[in-house]
């Protein structure tokens, strides 16, 4: 356990988030239980006003969570200097048994909070606020996830152990390791890449078919395959090292912070696809421009990762 200024900052924000979200959680329960658009008593009007407060709180948390995610990676990178053997954030995160889960929850929460705000924007356009009950039921789930994430994060920082020698990403993301990532390496990389491009072309096709359920599913699959193929194949071309598979190291300066660009485009692309499809299924009148947006950002992502091996081949005349 150690308290660096960075960790104090993260703790402080977590406490603020926790305080506000508990507040919002209590209101949400009230709304889910008592919301009735046809009633005209004071309680109903009070609930409506409170729902605006909850929406404000959730927007506040979400807007902060985006840069905070990057800051978390920064902090983990910094701590990697202190922890023996860790070379980058990957080592730090995996020095704790639930480190990977913390990451999964962080990403999941970003998706859910972002989706909630999109849902909220759609709901406020509707005079009857017909989605309000659904919206706040979703928030109750999101609150649980947020609490889990915060508990994970606090126990993550407090259980970091400087005496423990951890594995560097080089060994973590290697074929021989027995870490939680290793199952990925049982997949032959040619199949993974073929699958990746197959999914992407399906995504292109579906975005022209404009079928929401298909588009939703394909975006989720695309997100997962994109990550797997990034670790398995494209990462090695970014590092120009056939054995280096780490998905964190390219967030560092040596690789011109390209990782942030990759993750952000992938996030925007899949997020707008997923949330757009769900919203569209809920409300037929919803605008359909999310197809274009999702396709655009996913294509940028694919273009960047594809460029790395091709440039490498042109420069060196061989594949890794």
């Amino acid at each position, binding site marked *: 356990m150690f308290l660096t200024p960075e960790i104090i900052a993260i703790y402080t924000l977590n406490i603020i988030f926790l305080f506000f979200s508990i507040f919002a959680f209590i209101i949400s329960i009230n709304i889910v239980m008592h919301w009735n658009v046809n009633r005209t008593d004071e309680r109903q009007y009070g609930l409506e006003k409170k729902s605006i407060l909850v929406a404000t709180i959730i927007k506040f948390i979400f807007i902060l969570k985006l840069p905070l995610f990057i800051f978390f990676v920064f902090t983990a990178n910094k701590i990697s200097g202190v922890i023996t053997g860790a070379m980058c954030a990957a080592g730090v995160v995996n*020095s704790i048994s639930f480190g990977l889960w913390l990451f999964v929850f962080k990403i999941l929460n970003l998706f859910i909070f972002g989706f909630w705000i999109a849902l909220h924007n759609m709901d406020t356009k509707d005079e009857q606020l017909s989605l309000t009950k659904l919206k706040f039921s979703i928030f109750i789930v999101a609150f649980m996830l947020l609490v889990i994430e915060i508990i994970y994060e606090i126990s993550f920082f407090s259980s970091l152990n*400087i*005496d*423990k*020698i951890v*594995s560097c990403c080089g060994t973590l993301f290697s074929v021989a*390791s*027995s*870490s939680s990532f290793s199952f990925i390496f049982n997949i032959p990389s040619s199949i993974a890449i073929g699958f990746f491009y197959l999914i992407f072309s399906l995504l292109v096709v579906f975005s022209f078919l404009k079928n929401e359920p298909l588009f939703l599913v394909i975006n989720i699959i695309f997100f997962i395959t994109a990550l797997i193929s990034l670790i398995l194949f494209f990462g090695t071309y970014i590092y120009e090292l056939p054995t280096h598979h780490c998905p964190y190291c390219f967030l560092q300066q040596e690789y011109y912070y390209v990782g942030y660009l990759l993750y952000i485009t992938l996030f925007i692309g899949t997020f707008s696809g997923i949330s757009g499809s769900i919203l569209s299924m809920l409300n037929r009148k919803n605008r359909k421009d999310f197809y274009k947006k999702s396709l655009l950002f996913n294509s940028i992502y694919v273009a960047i990762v594809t460029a790395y091996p091709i440039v490498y081949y042109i420069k060196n005349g061989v594949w890794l």
Partner: protein
Amino acid sequence: MSKLSYYLLSFIFLLFSILTIELLYMYSTFSLHVKEKNNFIAIVGLPDLAISNGANFIRHRSYSDTFSIFSNGPELLEYFPSTFTYSYSNNYKNTPSRIEFEN
């Protein structure tokens, strides 16, 4: 755009330019003498700077005492908590090592 917004924007712009000028000035004037310092350290081989200690009492705390760091003078006894810090590493504390290797 109203006049006030215009003033405010130009004020923020002014702040940004002051910041840039300040940063440029500092980048151009400050040099670290990395090479000379490393040469010196290579010969002397002692860690720590001549500032982070009370040089009238002891230097290179990491090579002398295990726990105390900053004491104020040779006449003073050490007192908690200013002159103490927690111990950071088992290697360092000289207790039986608990170094754990993870695969």
